[in-house]
């Protein structure tokens, strides 16, 4: 770590520190836990922390939501829209896609869990491996 852990770095980059903590909780749950549902929960936390990080890139101090104020009126008002007034819309579009991908993956993973539970009667990884070896 850089010499003397400068406190303003943490304050300055709170978005990164937050998402890294969240991501590591998810990553640990995914790899450390033996229960398959906990792995799935960890995977979701992991995905959502990345979404949080990318959306936080869009923020601009003092900017409003990316919808042109006054709708069409602001167009004929002649004042060109100033980019600094509006939040960056691109990360929000990307993360809408990432959210829907996350939903689809969680849906498929839950369907697999249902099949696993019905066939093997357990969702603990060690019991599962042992029952697979016997069947």
């Amino acid at each position, binding site marked *: *770590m*850089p010499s003397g852990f400068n406190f303003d*770095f943490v304050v*300055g*980059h*709170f*978005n*990164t*520190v937050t998402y*890294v*903590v969240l*991501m*590591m909780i998810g*990553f*640990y749950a995914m*790899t*450390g836990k033996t229960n398959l549902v906990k792995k799935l929960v960890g995977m979701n936390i992991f995905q959502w922390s990345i979404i949080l990080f990318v959306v*936080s*890139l*869009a*923020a*601009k*101090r*003092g*900017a409003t939501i*990316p*919808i*042109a104020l006054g*709708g*069409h009126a*602001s*167009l004929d008002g002649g004042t*060109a*829209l*100033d*980019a*600094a007034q*509006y939040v*960056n*819309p*691109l*990360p*929000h*579009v*990307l993360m*809408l*896609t990432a959210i*829907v*991908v996350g*939903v*689809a*993956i969680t*849906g*498929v993973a839950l*369907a*697999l869990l*249902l*099949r696993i539970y*019905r*066939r093997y009667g357990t969702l603990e990884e060690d019991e599962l491996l042992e029952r697979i070896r016997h069947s």
Partner: protein
Amino acid sequence: MKSLHVVVTVVTGLLLVLGSLDMSSPGDPNSPPATHVSPRYVESALEETAVPNMVTAVLADYRGFDTLGEVTVIFTGAVAVLLILRVTRDEDET
């Protein structure tokens, strides 16, 4: 085994925090993302697409192909779940 996971997790976390050292601070109006591509979306979305909501303009028009891929992902998810779950109990005993 558990300590290995903890070590891997902490190392990954440190690497990520280290990686964000020279990112521009949050909310900085002239960070690269805010100055390179997206200003055009903000400034000309209304005149080019007559849609005040810039997110919808980027979502459906500028990067409309992303959203087509997106809707395909949802369709894939629905058919995949159908493929996985449509197994009667006896079929599953093989």
